[in-house]
């Protein structure tokens, strides 16, 4: 495969400073998980003015997750459940209110943004907004190298061309503006920008939800190919369970800022224990015509996160809710020998 050979060429240049900056095989043997979230919380203040205090909104509450090296962790949940806030914290765009993130065993709190950028890179949802419309593709993809001062101008240009090859873009795309590319091509540019620094971890924030269905599959396959090629670890955020099932090793389900269930792909998709996970799975559209939109029995929309329900946050929508659900919040308990976790009194 063409992409494979170029990738080897990029990786095996001992003299250039570029290869020193990227991850070397030794570090990937480290026993630490690639990414570990310890009791991560983020709250915002709403409605505050210059002199008055506002209400507090807990967007992410006490999230703990371990993502082993080389694995794909899916993070699913409705919009507004805190997925994107979580992603922003992992990228260092906002600092957590409580808790910390360990990137390869190193705490993210107080870490240098540039050092972090060499480990974690994002792929954003909207390829129309993630590329600066006033810059050429070569400038966009080469920006990480320029900011980090890696290589000479000529080395940077070669590296950009190689990376465009790897993501399957024609070389002439380098001189074009984002407006001249299609959605799928733009997302390939975004992937190239994320990969040019050779990060260990890529945070994919709904990378296919803005694309046509026909293009989605291409981008997902590209992401899978790149994962095996570069030994990447993905945190794959999505609301689309069909996409998640295709790609991930493990799944974490988020509801109102908390993880309600986490487990392997097989466990989540074949034997979900949390009623919310079950409802999410029931809500997935089938390709079968004539079935219509499934009735998932969730009733109302998601409650206001600045005023969450008492006890289990899911109880107002839960078909199985009982008295205890309104009073005490269920803890995230391990089962299957610690291989899976669920937060439900009834599970």
């Amino acid at each position, binding site marked *: 495969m063409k992409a494979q050979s170029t990738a080897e060429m990029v990786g095996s240049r001992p003299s250039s400073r570029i290869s020193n900056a990227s991850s070397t095989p030794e570090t990937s043997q480290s026993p630490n998980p690639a990414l570990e979230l310890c009791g991560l919380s983020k709250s915002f203040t709403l409605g505050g003015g210059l002199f008055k205090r506002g209400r507090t909104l807990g967007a992410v509450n006490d999230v703990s997750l371990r993502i082993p090296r080389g694995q794909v962790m899916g993070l699913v949940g409705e919009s507004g459940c805190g997925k994107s806030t979580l992603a922003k914290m992992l990228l260092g765009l906002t600092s957590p209110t409580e808790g910390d993130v360990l990137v390869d065993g190193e705490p993210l709190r107080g870490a240098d943004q540039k050092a972090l950028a060499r480990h974690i890179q994002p792929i954003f949802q909207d390829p129309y907004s993630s590329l600066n419309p006033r810059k050429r593709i070569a400038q966009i993809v080469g920006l990480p190298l320029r900011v980090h001062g890696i290589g000479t101008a000529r080395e940077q240009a070669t590296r950009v061309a190689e990376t465009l090859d790897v993501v399957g873009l024609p070389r002439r795309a380098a001189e074009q503006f984002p407006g*001249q590319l*299609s959605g799928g091509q733009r997302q390939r540019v975004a992937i190239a920008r994320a990969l040019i620094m050779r990060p260990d971890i890529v945070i994919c924030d709904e990378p296919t939800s803005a694309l046509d269905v026909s293009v989605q599959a291409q981008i997902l396959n590209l992401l899978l190919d790149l994962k095996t090629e570069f030994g990447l670890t993905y945190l794959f955020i999505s609301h689309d369970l069909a996409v998640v099932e295709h790609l991930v090793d493990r799944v974490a389900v988020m509801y109102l800022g908390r993880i309600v269930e986490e487990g392997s792909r097989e466990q989540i998709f074949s034997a979900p224990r949390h009623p919310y996970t079950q409802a999410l799975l029931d809500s997935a559209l089938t390709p079968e015509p004539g079935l219509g939109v499934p009735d998932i029995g969730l009733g109302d929309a998601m409650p206001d996160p600045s005023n969450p329900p008492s006890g289990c946050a899911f109880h107002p929508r839960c078909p199985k809710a009982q008295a205890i659900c309104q009073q005490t919040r269920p803890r995230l308990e391990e089962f299957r020998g610690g291989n899976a976790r669920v937060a439900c009194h009834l599970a």
Partner: protein
Amino acid sequence: MTTSNVSATVSSARRPGASLGEVPLPVPAWSRVTRRIFGHRGLAIGLIVVGLAVLIAIFAPLLAPHDPYHQDIANRMVPPVWHDKGSWVHVLGTDKLGRDTLSRLLFGTRISLTIGLVVALISGIIGTTLGVLAGYFGGRVDAVISYIITTRLAMPVVLVALALASLTGGSLITVILLLGLLLWDRFAVVSRSVTQQMRDAEYVYAARTLGCSLPYILLREVLPNIAGSLIVVMTLEMAHAILLEATLSFLGMGVQPPLPSWGLMVAEGKAYMFFQPWVIAIPGIALFLLVLAINLLGDGLRDLNAPGGRN
């Protein structure tokens, strides 16, 4: 002309090229630009008139038939050439001191254009800095800067400028500084709202994730995307400044005699308004044409900057 233009600018600036993967025609960039400019009639007219004004300002000493300061008491109030008593010596006649109106008009272009450009630059720098900071940081920074903008908007420009000019005494430099320090509000309002939309653009997030410095993000990622709207505001503020200079000079608080400012020429002719109307009509028409042309230019640039206009 004011509010509707600004709001249209804001809404037109928010969509970065919306066209899907269309194949660009292999037309040279320059010819594409010229074709677009001359396809827009208002823009073409504005560009030609403003271009002429710039040429006149630069070559005024070569074009002017007389010294604009030379007084010829024997030839006072000579009417223009189309009048019965007009002559080709003074094509547009002379004023009450016998100075050649055409020469003064040509040299006056320099003053108007200088004021327009320098004021737009000063106020553009002040307003854009405030607006971009407010829009990018939001929160308290935004609250403080919005307060400053509101304070400025609450001041009547002409009255404040008059009061300050009467304290400092009028001169070309004073007028430029006064107007430059007063006319930044529209720059601030426009750049603030456009930057607010850009703050959460994912390419700004991408740059922040990479560890790009704040000046890099503001100057290289944000500014190029708001430049289109700012150029439009700049043309509008140029026209605004030129009119205000004429107003101040007319009221005696702006540029001082004997400088050939158009506003001053109108002021000097107002006593003769009923029997020799050309004395004030000629500089008035010049003012009108220049301001109109600059506004046409601004509107045309705004249309060019609109979503469909760029690839």
